[in-house]
């Protein structure tokens, strides 16, 4: 399997790149601090007296990711183009796809690691009561898939520009749309001014709608398919953008 060997070589390099810069550690610390702060102080997890992580913990994830995932993904292609290493990478005997998937996987694994490091939450809630650990597990799976969707969008944004800042802003804008499309206040406005069908249509694009199922402990194939198709489509768009740059 030459293909996967090439992908894995790229993935290893990218993962290494995260951990040699302080970015990785800063990201993980901020993510964990945010999780702790919002769960315990904003959502008042301890006062709620409920042995569940869904509302106090996972509800915040779409919002955390809005800023944190574009920060992880912004350098993926923008930096390669700025430094010129893209010329090395794409003249190696690998396909552009292998490079795109390899880079994406590295960042996705990194986000997975950050997510796994929130395990003290799970231990706490298990110590205090007896939660439904199945629901917690599906919610983790959903959260990771959602992070993957955000990340793939960040890849597109990163391929568009040489500037990491511009790439970050574009990614946040698109991800914000994906959240707001399913945000109750926005849905209400849509339902008032447009037909229910349109509201349904817009809502179906939202990560919120599709994340909800996971939070209830349901692994719905449509939700999984939604996140996977966002990832697939975004990575495909990335490859098209990279090709157009070079076509001149």
């Amino acid at each position, binding site marked *: 399997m030459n293909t996967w060997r090439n992908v894995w070589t790229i993935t290893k390099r990218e993962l290494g790149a995260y951990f040699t810069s302080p970015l990785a550690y800063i990201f993980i610390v901020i993510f964990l601090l945010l999780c702790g702060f919002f769960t315990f102080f904003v959502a008042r997890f301890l006062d709620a007296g409920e042995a569940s992580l869904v509302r106090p913990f996972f509800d915040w994830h779409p919002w955390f990711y809005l800023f944190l995932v574009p920060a992880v993904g912004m350098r993926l292609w923008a930096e390669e183009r700025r430094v010129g290493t893209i010329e090395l990478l794409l*003249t*190696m005997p690998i396909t552009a796809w292998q490079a795109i998937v390899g880079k994406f996987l590295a960042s996705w694994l990194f986000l997975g690691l950050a997510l796994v490091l929130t395990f003290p939450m799970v231990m706490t809630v298990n110590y205090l009561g007896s939660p439904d650990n199945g629901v917690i597990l599906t919610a983790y799976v959903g959260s990771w898939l959602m992070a993957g969707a955000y990340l793939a969008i960040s890849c597109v944004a990163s391929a568009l520009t040489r500037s990491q800042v511009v790439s970050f802003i574009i990614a946040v804008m698109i991800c914000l749309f994906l959240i707001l499309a399913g945000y109750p206040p926005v849905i209400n406005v849509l339902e008032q001014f447009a037909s229910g069908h349109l509201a349904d249509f817009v809502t179906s694009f939202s990560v919120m709608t599709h994340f909800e199922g996971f939070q209830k402990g349901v692994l719905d194939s449509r939700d999984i398919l939604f996140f996977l198709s966002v990832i697939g489509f975004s990575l495909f768009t990335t490859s098209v953008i990279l090709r157009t740059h070079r076509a001149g």
Partner: protein
Amino acid sequence: MIKVQNLAKTFGAKRAVDGVSFSVDRGEVLGFLGPNGAGKSTTMRMVTGFLPPSGGTASIGGFDIVEHPIQAKRLMGYLPENAPAYTDMTVYGFLNFAAEIRGLSGDAKKQAVTRVVEMCFLEPVLHQSVETLSKGYRHRTCFAQSIIHDPDVLVLDEPTDGLDPNQKHEIRQLIRRMGQKKAIIFSTHILEEVDAVCSRAIIIDRGRIVANGTPQELRQKSEWAGAVTLRVKGVASSAVTARLGQVPLVKRVTLVEEKDGRVTVRAFPRSDANSALAQAVGEAAREWQIEQLHSEEGRLDEVFRSITMPDTAKEAA
């Protein structure tokens, strides 16, 4: 090994490369000359498969770079302009990555890395991060990457740019040595380099090839080729030019310098003069005190300038 036919590239309305054809065989080092913006880098980027050509074909070892990019790229090492390298890695990590992505593993990988570290003198900085390297070391790191899999074809975009004279010398030696077994293209705008390294040179200007030949052949195009320079002592310059002007083989005589009673003149030959001119000039100057007498070989920089300068600039000069 490298075959390029009618290669063209347009960026918007601009034709950066306009129908370039050449081929390089094993054992040849092809020098790519041209002013900045002439299309050297663009041509190389198409040959290496980074940019898709707008027209024409390029093939490496029989594999078309567009139809069979992976096979073609496998045979090739590439040093891009400005020698980019992943700044967040150590030199060792970067070379290992390059070896792995070229399909090397285990002992073969270890040996390949050791070999290029020795060849490019990277030992002192092996565990240093690329970001902290001096320009010379970074250049050599990227160069090491391009030869890590001992490729049959090497494409080097300004391999000596930004190096100090010693490093330049080392890299040239390396290229010349490798050129005995590989097909190499390298671009430069340092003309002495062409003499030192190339078996053949191409001059490219505004996207087209304007001259193609061995360095010797290119020099022949210079009007200096075969000219004779003479320095004599104790004679008036007017007498020297007058006397030499009467020699039948001489087309014209120019005064180069008159200083401290010494006169230096240069006699340009008629087209049929060949090597007899030095003899003839020597005869004519028999009674004077000759301090120096030698034939010019023709100068590449002069050929380069006369070929690539726009016509208007030539008149102004």
